[in-house]
C-alpha cells in the first residue's frame, strides 16, 4: 500500500466544455494537513465537490485513489462511508432542530422501534461541544438560538462525530472570532495527531500558515505549486495565488478628513425574539467627511444590528437618533435612508445583497432604476450606459451585463452590490463585512475603491471581523462588545492585541 491515504491524479472537470479544473494533482498522507489556496473562482470548491462526489464519478476525467484502491463514488453517502467528510462554507444546519439532532442528522442513534435515542445523542453531543470549548451551548435547544460563529462550530462538531479519515474544511473560520478560530486550529492539530488527514481551505492565510504542513496553490483551474509550509511565507502564497507580486495587501491613498457628517446618538436595538434583551445598548458616535471608521468586535457584539438600525433595516425595535449634516434625519426604512444619503452593503450577500433571478445589470440599477425612465418606459440605452460605467469603475469581471448574477464569483457579486449602492451617491456608506468570501485580488480593489470614495468626501463606516483589515484601511476604529461601545481609537500605533483586549472588555475606554 502506498504511503498516501489519498491521491487525485490529473483531475479535469468541464462545464459546458470550459474546463473549471485542468489537470489537478493532490496527494495526502495520513495525519497531514494540506492548505488549499487560490482566489475565488480558482476551482477550490469544484475540486472538493469532485473529491466528495457531489459531482459523481464519470462526470469528470482523472483518477482518485483512496487507500490504494480506485474510488468511484456516485454520491456523498459513499464518500462519507469511506471516511471523507466535508464541512461546507455555507452552513448546512436545520435551524428548527436541536443542536444534538443536527449533529446526528442522517446517522441518528436509534432505540428499538426506530425511536430516537435522545439520551445517548445528547450525551455525545455535549462531549463533542466540550472538546470544541462550547460548554455553554445547550444541546437540546434549537440551533437557531445560537449565532453564526457558534453554528459554525456546531457544524464542525457534526463532522467530528462522523469518524473522518479525511476532513475537508471549506472556509471554516469565515464567521468565527479570533478566539473561536484558535479553538478550531487546536482541534485540527488534535485530529492530525490522531492520524486524520485534513484539507484546509481558507482565505485567511495566517491560519493556513499556522496549521498546514503543505500548501497547494491552484489558479484558474490549474495546479500552480505544492510546497512544504516551512519553505513558504504568506507573501509567497499570495504571489502564487494571484500570479503576481502583491507588494501591499492594503493600498494607501491620502484623504483629508473633514467636519462631522453623521452622528448616531444613543442607538439602542432590542432583540427580535426577546424584546427585553438589548442587542445594542446606547451607542453614540460621530463620523466625519472622508473618514473610514472601522467597527471591530467579536461576533454577536451588536455591530450588524447597529448599522442595520442606522439604515432603517433592523428587524426588531430600535431607538436613538441619527443626525446628518446637523439635521436629525428619519431613517425609518431603507428607502428613506437611501433618500437621506445613506447606503448599506449588507453582510449576507446571498440573502440580502443579490437578487438571484435578475441579470448583473439589473442588480446594479435596482436602487435607482426610476432615474433611467422616459415617461414610464425604462430607457435601455441610458440604463446600460450607467451599468457599463459602474462595471468599469469597479473592474467588475463579467462577460456581459446580461448574465445572471449567480454566474459571477463571490468577489464580483460583491462588486455588483457595491455598484448598486454607489449609484445612489451616498454621503454615508455603510459596509458590513465588505470582503467576506472575497478573493485577495478583489479585496485589494475594494479597499482601493473605499479610499477613493473617502478622498471624494464620502464618509465610510466599515464593520469587519478581520482585524488586519480593520487596521489596514481604517482611519479610526470603534470597538464593540456585548452591545456596548468599548473603545474608540485613532488608528495610529494600534495593534490587534489592543483591539481584542477592548472587545473582550479588559480595557474600558480607549484613547481619543
Amino acid at each position, binding site marked *: 500500500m502506498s504511503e498516501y491515504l489519498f491521491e487525485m491524479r490529473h483531475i479535469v472537470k468541464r462545464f459546458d466544455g470550459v474546463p473549471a479544473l485542468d489537470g489537478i494533482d493532490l496527494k495526502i498522507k495520513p495525519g497531514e494537513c494540506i492548505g488549499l489556496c487560490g482566489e475565488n473562482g480558482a476551482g477550490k470548491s469544484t475540486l472538493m465537490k469532485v473529491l466528495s462526489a457531489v459531482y459523481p464519478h464519470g462526470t469528470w476525467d482523472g483518477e482518485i485513489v483512496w487507500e490504494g484502491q480506485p474510488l468511484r463514488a456516485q454520491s456523498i453517502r459513499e464518500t462519507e462511508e469511506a471516511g471523507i467528510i466535508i464541512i461546507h462554507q455555507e452552513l448546512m444546519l436545520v435551524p428548527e432542530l436541536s443542536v444534538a439532532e443536527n449533529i446526528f442528522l442522517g446517522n441518528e442513534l436509534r432505540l428499538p422501534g426506530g425511536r430516537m435515542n435522545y439520551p445517548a445523542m445528547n450525551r455525545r453531543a455535549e462531549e463533542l461541544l466540550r472538546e470544541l470549548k462550547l460548554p455553554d451551548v445547550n444541546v437540546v435547544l434549537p440551533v437557531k438560538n445560537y449565532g453564526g460563529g457558534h453554528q459554525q462550530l456546531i457544524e464542525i462538531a457534526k463532522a467530528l462525530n462522523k469518524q473522518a479519515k479525511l476532513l475537508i474544511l471549506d472556509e471554516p473560520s469565515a464567521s468565527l472570532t479570533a478566539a473561536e478560530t484558535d479553538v478550531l486550529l487546536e482541534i485540527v492539530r488534535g485530529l492530525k495527531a490522531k492520524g486524520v488527514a485534513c484539507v484546509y481551505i481558507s482565505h485567511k492565510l495566517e491560519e493556513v500558515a499556522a496549521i498546514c504542513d503543505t500548501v497547494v496553490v491552484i489558479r484558474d483551474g490549474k495546479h500552480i505549486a505544492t510546497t512544504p509550509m516551512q519553505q513558504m511565507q504568506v507573501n509567497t502564497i499570495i504571489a502564487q495565488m494571484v500570479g503576481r507580486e502583491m507588494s501591499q495587501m492594503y493600498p494607501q491613498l491620502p484623504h483629508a478628513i473633514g467636519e462631522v457628517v453623521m452622528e448616531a446618538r444613543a442607538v439602542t436595538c432590542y432583540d427580535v425574539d426577546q424584546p427585553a434583551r438589548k442587542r445594542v445598548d446606547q451607542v453614540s458616535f460621530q463620523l466625519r467627511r472622508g473618514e473610514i471608521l472601522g467597527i471591530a468586535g467579536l461576533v454577536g457584539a451588536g455591530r450588524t444590528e447597529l448599522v442595520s438600525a442606522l439604515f432603517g433595516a433592523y428587524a426588531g425595535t430600535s431607538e436613538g437618533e441619527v443626525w446628518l449634516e446637523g439635521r436629525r434625519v428619519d431613517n425609518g426604512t431603507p428607502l428613506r435612508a437611501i433618500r437621506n444619503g445613506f447606503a448599506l452593503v449588507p453582510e449576507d450577500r446571498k440573502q440580502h445583497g443579490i437578487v438571484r433571478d*435578475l441579470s448583473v445589470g*439589473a442588480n446594479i440599477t*435596482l436602487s435607482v*432604476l426610476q432615474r433611467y*425612465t422616459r415617461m414610464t*418606459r425604462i430607457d435601455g440605452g441610458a440604463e446600460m450606459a450607467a451599468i457599463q460605467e459602474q462595471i468599469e469603475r469597479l473592474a467588475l469581471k463579467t462577460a456581459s451585463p446580461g448574465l445572471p448574477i449567480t454566474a459571477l464569483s463571490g468577489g464580483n457579486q460583491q462588486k455588483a452590490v457595491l455598484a448598486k449602492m454607489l449609484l445612489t451617491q451616498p454621503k454615508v456608506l455603510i459596509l458590513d463585512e465588505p470582503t467576506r468570501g472575497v478573493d485577495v485580488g478583489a479585496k485589494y480593489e475594494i479597499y482601493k475603491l473605499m479610499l477613493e470614495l473617502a478622498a471624494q468626501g464620502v464618509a465610510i463606516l466599515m464593520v469587519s471581523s478581520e482585524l488586519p483589515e480593520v487596521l489596514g484601511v481604517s482611519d479610526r476604529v470603534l470597538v464593540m462588545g456585548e452591545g456596548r461601545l468599548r473603545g474608540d481609537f485613532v488608528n495610529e500605533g494600534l495593534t490587534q492585541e489592543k483591539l481584542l483586549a477592548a472587545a473582550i472588555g479588559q480595557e474600558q475606554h480607549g484613547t481619543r
Partner: protein
Amino acid sequence: MNTNKFKQLFSQYKILALLVAIALIWAFFSWKTDGDFTTARNISNLMRQMSITGILACGMVFIIIAGEIDLSVGSLLGLLGGAAALLDVNQHASLAVTIGTVLAFGLAVGLFNGFLTAYAGIPSFIVGLGGMLAYRGVLLGATGGQTIAPVSDDLIVLGQGYLAPSFGTALGLVLFVLAGVLTWQQRRSLAQHQLPVRPLWFDGLRVLFLGAIVALFVHLFNSYEGIPYPVLLLLVLLGVFSYIATQTVFGRRIYAVGSNMEATRLSGVNVRAVKLWIFGLMGLMCALGGLINTARLAAGSPSAGTAGELDVIAACFIGGTSMRGGAGTVHGALIGALVMASLDNGMSMLDVDAYWQMIVKGLILTFAVWVDVATRTGRR
C-alpha cells in the same frame, strides 16, 4: 453533457414546445371530431372561452412572479360579474356607469387583498382562501342565489360582439409590422451593447412565423364573424402587461421582489407598495373578467367563476411561471390558458364525462410542471 445541452435548448424554446403541444392537442381533437374542432366557429368560440381565464392569468402571473398567490379570483370574478348584472338589470345603469363602477369596485377589493398581504402581513394564501369564501358569500347574499337576467344588449355586446372583418385584417397588419419593428429595435439595442445578436435569418423567420400565425388567426376569425371583443381585449392586455413586465420600473421590481424580497427592500424599493399594486391590478382583471363573463352568459350567475382560480393558476404554471417567484412571462401564462381552454372545449365536444375532464386536466398540469422541473438546468 448531452442531456444538459438538450435541457438548455428545451428551456430556451419552452414556449415553442408549448405551441407544439397545443398543435398536438388540436390535431388530436380535430381527428376525433372529424374536423369539427378546428372549424372557424369552434376556434372562435374556444378563444372566447379562453379569454376570461386569460384575462385573470395576466394579473395572476404578476402575483406569482412576486412570490404570492391569490385564491380568491374565481369568487371575486363571480362577485364583480354579479355586481355588473345587478347594476345593469336592477338599476338600469348605463354601460359606462356599469363598467366604471365595477372596475373601481374590483380595484378596491384587489387593493384590500393587497393591503392584508403586504401591510397586515397575512400570508396571501390565507387572504385568498378567506376571500374565496367571503366574496362568494357576498355574491350569494346580494343576488339571493338567483340568476340575474336579462342583461341589456349594450352589455352583451362586450362578451358576444365581433370586430368587423376589415378592422380585423387591419389589426393583423399592424401586429405584423409591430413585431417587425420590435424585433429590429431589439437587434439594434443588442448590437449597440455588444451583446450576441441572433442571426438575421433566425429573427426574420421568427417574424414571418409570427406573421403567419397572426394571418391564420385573423383569417379564421374573419371567416366566422370577426375577432370577438373578449379576444381583442385579451390581446390588448397581453400588450399592456408584457410592456409593464419588460419595459417599466414597476415590472422590474415585481421580478426583484419575487426573487429576493429582502435584498430588494434593502435596495430602497418600497416592496409593500409593489405588492399592494400587484393585487390592485389583479382586482382590476377580476372586474374585466367578471364583466365579460356576465356579458357572455347574458346573465349574472351566483356560481360564475367557481373554481376559476384553479384554471388560472394552472395556466400560469403550465406557461412556465416559477413556483418560487422571480420568473415568468405574460405570454407564457396566456399560452397556458389556451392549453386549458383547448382541453375543456375539446373534451366537451367529445362528450367526455366531467370527472374524466377533471382527471385529464389534473394530469396535464402535473405533467407540465414535471417537464419544467426536470428540464431546469443549473440547480443550486
